[in-house]
């Protein structure tokens, strides 16, 4: 009887891994790191997870979950409710639809894809924020934030890959 229990446990760990890693990044992005000027350029960390799991484990990253995670990011950050949720859902759909291209080519292709997605996502968030607050927001911090998000993708993807190998194994 021990084997099935172990298997089941392993199965549930597999199921929650993408969600838990995304959640961890959301929480990390709102924890004050107390680095000067950092909060103004905080990268959208969780976007890396949404994209990565969308490409490699789409079934474990259902669109409803992605929506709820985005909503949580919005609620915790005190920003515009629904904006990040919207961005996450669109990014997830994009990465899932292009997963064959993104997953079967060298890593750089996936990274380039992520760069495009991240730029699009942040420019979209910026545009909606401008419309929402009825003011032209400075693009400088947004550009820095995008650059950080994009440059953090390789190490994050590497970590996700290790977690995936460890948890999912042959799955």
């Amino acid at each position, binding site marked *: 009887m021990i084997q099935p229990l172990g298997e089941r446990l392993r199965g549930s760990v597999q199921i929650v891994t993408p969600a838990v890693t995304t959640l961890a990044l959301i929480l990390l992005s709102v*924890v004050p790191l107390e680095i000067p000027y950092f909060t103004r350029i905080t990268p959208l960390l969780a976007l890396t997870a949404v994209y990565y799991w969308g490409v490699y484990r789409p079934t474990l990253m259902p669109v409803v979950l992605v929506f709820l995670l985005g909503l949580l990011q919005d609620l915790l950050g005190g920003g515009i409710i629904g904006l990040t949720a919207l961005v996450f859902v669109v990014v997830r759909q994009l990465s899932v639809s292009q997963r064959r291209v993104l997953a079967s080519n060298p890593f750089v292709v996936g990274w380039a894809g992520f760069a495009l997605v991240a730029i699009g996502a942040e420019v979209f968030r910026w545009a909606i924020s401008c419309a929402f607050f009825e003011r032209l927001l400075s693009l400088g911090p947004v550009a820095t934030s995008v650059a950080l998000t994009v440059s953090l993708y390789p190490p994050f993807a590497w970590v996700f890959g290790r977690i995936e190998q460890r948890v999912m194994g042959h799955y």
Partner: protein
Amino acid sequence: MRLRGNGISTLGLSLKTTAHRFAAALLVMTALGLLVLGKADAPLIANWRISIADTVTPALAVIQQPVRAARAVIAEARSWANVRAKNRRLEEENAHLRIWQQLASRYRRENRDFRRLLKMARGPVPTFISARVVGDSGSPFVRTLLLAAGAEDGIKPNQAVIAADGLVGRIVEVGTRSARILLLTDLNSRVPVRLAGSGYRGILVGDNSPQAVLTYLPARAKARPGEEVVTSGDGGLFPPGLPVGVVTRVVGPAVHVQPYVDDDEVEFVSVVRYRLPVPKDDTMASATGPSGQPHALPKR
């Protein structure tokens, strides 16, 4: 991963795909709906937001531990590195402060005597609730902080929030165990202030950048770089005289103010409980500040 299977499973798969697409479209619509609802400024949204924060605040406090530990180690190493220089500086500062202390106690005595002579009504005395910052906005679009204290600690909307160096912002959302501060530098922040030197009043407006802009100054007011900016107390939300920042640049009509508090580095803040006395039959009555009895402040 190749798709294999017979006709039925292919049909099932395509049905599933359609359902997924439909779900995605529905969620996109929901998100847009929330955006519109938020723009309509429904207090409903603020309530959701703070109740989620209430739930997550303990988790944030836990996640923060390693970050704090790492910072503490770095700070410790740094302080060891320049302990001698720091000691010398502190000794000098101490000597300087001792002179100030003497002056201050003389002024306090004088002030008390003058007040007595003038029969001046004392304003309400603010009290403070100290709390830890457990979250920030995590995005370039808003400037807020999340506090690990809420209604059950006595925090109410619109209270001023200060740190060691001066004003941080004001409380905008209050949950049971958490509260959100709108920082001085946020796009939506408006704080009634005055120039400490000349006494001219204006409104300090944030723009999400590290500095804020002093507006609505009277045309005759000439702000100079280096001049201190303090709260004016207009509107009755903030106690007057809280240090806010210092004028750094004056470009035409735009007066740029650098807040004293670097909001990226605040760890603890104090929420100021302050109420203007409700006009009663005579003055002098509410000399001891908040009495615990809720005053009938106009709700906004």
